[in-house]
């Protein structure tokens, strides 16, 4: 395309890259929101079946139009701001919860780099060499949404919910980070694409690097459930004690933004766990012929789906923890185990050449 509109080839490459990234971002954001909508339906159906009932099956065939009905209902509900609340913080807080949840997915590599019709194609928006740091940093920003929502509502329940959310998320970030560090040490990289690639190349996802990889994986998943404020760690919205926790004073579309943020965060944590411990598109080889590479994203999405089912399954089974027990689980059990696990993994990686895991074979 040399000379088109007086622009040289390099400029056109940049413009094309920007347009591609924008399209990918659009597809990812809308895909996440669609996944959120149908995740709510799936959750209600699976919860129903686990309680020997049907779940929603009235709107459309098998209740498939239920999320649309819910969406219309939420969009048209009255949006109430309490008189004593701080209007601007109250309005911005749900956005601060939702936007970080949506942009984390930019660094998730859904599939191997491949060529479609001879053109290079990537299944991520950005491949940055601090991918994991980006994801955790953005996820931490999301907590501000909950805290500010609790604070700005000027309500005791909301404030307590926000406090609990911040205390819980900060506590479990430590164990989660240390568990993820195990995978990062094994990969020797923070680049999420590189981490997946190493696992695929070694033929074994890090969760199967026994025993340390499995321990780290289990800790990561437990901490991930706590991070996303999901049952049985949903202290921030313990409805029996706090009304609805940090979003007690929210209604209508602002409330549904918190709702979206929770579910999109679940998807993000599932995706990160898949990247770090389940080897992304493993067992599809990165350098396979084109159409087999195309199966990579499907494998990835199946793994995310398995995590999402686990989230629902846990919610259907376990009662909510008491807050002090939640804290002692995080600080006195998960954190020490993750720390020792990281130390031992580092020792093994330091003593053996990188990429060879002595206990794997």
């Amino acid at each position, binding site marked *: 395309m040399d000379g088109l509109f007086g622009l040289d080839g390099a400029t056109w490459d940049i413009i094309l890259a920007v347009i591609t990234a924008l399209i990918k971002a659009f597809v990812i954001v809308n895909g996440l929101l669609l996944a959120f909508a149908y995740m709510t339906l799936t959750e209600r159906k699976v919860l129903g079946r686990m309680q*020997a*009932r*049907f779940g929603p099956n009235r709107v459309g065939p098998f209740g498939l139009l239920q999320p649309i009905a819910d969406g219309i209902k939420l969009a048209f509900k009255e949006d109430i701001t309490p008189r004593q609340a701080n209007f601007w913080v109250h309005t911005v807080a749900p956005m601060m919860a939702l936007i970080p949840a949506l942009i984390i997915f930019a660094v998730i590599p859904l599939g191997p780099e491949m060529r479609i019709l001879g053109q290079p194609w990537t299944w991520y928006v950005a491949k940055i060499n601090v991918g994991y740091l980006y994801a955790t940093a953005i996820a931490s920003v999301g907590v501000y949404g909950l805290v500010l929502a609790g604070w700005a509502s000027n309500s005791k329940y909301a404030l307590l919910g926000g406090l609990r959310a911040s205390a819980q998320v900060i506590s479990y970030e430590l164990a989660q980070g240390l568990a993820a560090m195990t995978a990062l040490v094994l990969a020797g990289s923070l680049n999420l694409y590189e981490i997946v690639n190493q696992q695929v190349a070694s033929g074994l996802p890090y969760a199967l690097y026994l025993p340390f990889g499995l321990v780290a994986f289990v800790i990561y998943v437990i901490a991930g459930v706590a991070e996303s404020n999901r049952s049985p760690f949903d202290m921030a919205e313990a409805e029996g004690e706090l009304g609805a926790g940090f979003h007690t004073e929210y209604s209508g579309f602002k409330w549904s933004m918190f709702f979206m943020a929770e579910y999109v965060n679940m998807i993000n944590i599932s995706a990160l766990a898949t990247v770090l411990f389940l080897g992304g598109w493993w067992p599809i080889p990165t350098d396979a012929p084109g159409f087999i590479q195309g199966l990579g994203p499907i494998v990835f999405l199946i793994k995310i789906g398995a995590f999402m089912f686990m989230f629902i*399954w846990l919610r259907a089974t376990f009662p909510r923890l008491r807050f002090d027990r939640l804290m002692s689980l995080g600080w006195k059990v998960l954190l020490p185990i993750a720390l020792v696990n990281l130390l031992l993994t580092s020792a093994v990686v330091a003593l053996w050449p990188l990429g060879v895991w002595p206990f794997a074979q």
Partner: protein
Amino acid sequence: MAFVEVKSPPPPANALSGAVADVTALARGLGVTLGYMFQKPVTIQYPEERPRISARHRGRHELERHDNGLEKCVGCELCALACPSKAIFVEGAENPPDAPVSIGERYAKTYIVNMIRCIFCGFCVEACPTEALQLKKVFELADYTRESMIYSKETLLAPAPKREATDSWMPG
């Protein structure tokens, strides 16, 4: 549900075996919910699927007839007396011998049940000496107005039998 005896587990010997027991208990809990997921839901999808009504269900009132079409009710008002919520009003009258309504000397000229007041206790049925009043299995009684909830004798009376009434006063 069958009665399940719950045995409390013995106290753990040490911290590790306690942790193992805890994790095992969690796994068993997960197994229970997963097992339920593959069971058939117990939900009765009501408007399409009809519930099974027990034989002695106490639903809508009905005033019964004899086989010859004469009413069983003799207008004795014992049901109205037995009713704890005063939902029943009966006005008896002399039974005309040339055109009998019931088999007794008297019959119910007016018979009104206020279904808003009725608590479906069934005392009226127990009080009835002629087994004229029955509570049937019909349970879909909701309506839009208060007036429509006051059931008159025409509403309550069982439909007349198909065959012609015999000339005998006594039930055939």
